[in-house]
């Protein structure tokens, strides 16, 4: 076999990869970085500097939107973990062997349905003229219809709904690898249910918890539809700001600055999560 042939085929395999990563991932990121550093003075005259970032920091509305998005994403991640863990544990450890696959597939059903349809479903259920409100009135539980959309609790609930599956999948696959003998040993040594949970189950599930939390957080912070549709005009979600600057106001410099800020922020959180728990990106994200 010729070395040249080997080299040629390596080049051929490498080309699509390099074109893809270079032209569609790296260069565009450099592009928004570049646009975020420039400031329009007149039609085709630009200054370069950090002014856009200074504006971002000094404008409370923008700053607070980022903090709000970050805070709500953390709340959503924590809730998704609390809601998803028992489900994952049930599927991996308690359900009978036969029903396991079926339960797991049932968890994945909403994954195959567009975000838009799911948000639309919540709107049909929760708005003032919606199913829940009408039913409660008909049952005489409340006197008049209530609006259940456009508040933070609904946005958080909708986001948990959208992302909880991405928590359950890695948790289930981690927990499935756990030997039941570990639990029995814990009980035999006199551990209470809580001790076994805290000292055996949680440490064992840690890699799954970390990857679930990272994926969930990324998806939440980058989500657009759920906060905008369920939160209405006042959702002040960060991705919505990016859209407004780019498309509505056509202020690309500010939009790019917001974009870079979001990217740096989410990358920082992911990096921090990986560092604190000693995991690597390849093993957490690429597993499923």
């Amino acid at each position: 076999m010729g070395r040249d042939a080997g080299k040629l085929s390596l080049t051929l395999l490498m080309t699509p990869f390099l074109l893809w990563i270079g032209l569609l991932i790296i260069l565009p990121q450099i592009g928004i970085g570049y646009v975020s550093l420039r400031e329009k003075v007149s039609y085709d005259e630009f200054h370069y500097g950090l002014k856009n970032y200074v504006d971002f920091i000094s404008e409370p509305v923008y700053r607070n939107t980022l903090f709000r998005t970050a805070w709500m994403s953390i709340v959503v991640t924590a809730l998704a973990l609390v809601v998803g863990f028992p489900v994952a544990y049930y599927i991996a450890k308690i359900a009978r062997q036969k029903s396991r696959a079926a339960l797991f597939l049932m968890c994945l059903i909403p994954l195959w349905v567009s975000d838009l349809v799911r948000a639309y479903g919540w709107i049909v259920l929760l708005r003032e003229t919606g199913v829940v409100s009408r039913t409660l009135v008909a049952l005489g539980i409340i006197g008049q219809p209530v609006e259940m959309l456009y508040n933070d609790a609904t946005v958080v609930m909708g986001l948990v709904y959208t992302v909880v599956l991405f928590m359950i999948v890695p948790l289930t696959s981690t927990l499935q690898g756990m030997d039941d003998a570990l639990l029995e040993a814990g009980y035999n040594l006199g551990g209470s249910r809580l001790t076994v949970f805290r000292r055996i189950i949680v440490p064992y599930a840690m890699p799954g918890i970390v990857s679930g939390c990272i994926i969930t957080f990324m998806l939440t912070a980058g989500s657009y539809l759920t906060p905008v549709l369920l939160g209405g005009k006042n959702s002040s979600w960060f991705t919505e700001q990016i859209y407004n600057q780019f498309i509505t106001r056509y202020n690309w410099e500010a939009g790019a600055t917001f974009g870079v800020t979001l990217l740096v922020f989410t990358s920082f959180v992911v990096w921090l999560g990986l560092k604190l728990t000693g995991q690597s990106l390849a093993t957490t994200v690429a597993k499923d």
Partner: protein
Amino acid sequence: MQSSTGLRLVYRAYMVVFFLFLVAPLVAAGVFAFNDSLFPSLPWNGFTLDWFFSPVEPKLGLFHDERLLRGLENSLYIGVIVAALSVAAGTCNAFLFERRAFPLKGLAYILLIIPLVIPGVILGISILVLASMIANWIDLNFGLFITWLRPGIPLIVLGQFSFLTTITSLVIAARLQKFDMALEEAALNLGAGKLRVLATVTLPFLYPAMFSAFVVAFLVSFENFNTTLMLVGSDAPLTITMYDRMVKAGSTPVLNAVSVVLMLGSGLLALASVLVQREPKA
């Protein structure tokens, strides 16, 4: 295990409530497509298929609604192209990472994963910015106006391709990893050329994975909103058309009809992908 019946019942109940929570909005989106009413809400006025087939306003059915149908057509068109492209690139990447050694492979692997951790909105705006910069530069220097670098279907295809390729690469690479090298060696010993081995032994082994990668890519493309929203031009795909309708015109049960079609379509495709994956074992 030593759990009391009471606790076990509570746990069961929790699972039931959780699954109800999962299906509630899907059922709500689906059921009201069949309600004979102008609003997707109670009271139930009786069963109808008007929201699918009625040719006249005010209950213009989905299959007579020009704009929704055009959206559906655009989505199918974009989905097939993106899925084909990303499966082709994903297959190359799978061979590159499973079979080859090259310098900086660790870094390259991280780059392969990275598109999954960049928020979709950012992928969208960054590709929009770069494409516009290139288009403006060409316009300024050569006086050429390049339409496909402006928002529209080609940019949507590029934007979706940018992260779907990661997914297809991982799916196909996982299958290639399970390939028994002895099969290729046997074919080579029997006198087959390298390309022949690839075409008759290795690629057929990968077909099921390529098929499911295609289905997954198609579905994700069809449902994608965040990246598409930033790159959309005048030919909007279905999700964007439906979103516009929801925000501007308010919701009528025709949107529920769209939801039903979307759920049925993706359900069938997902089923097909599961069946194809399962076949080799049986």
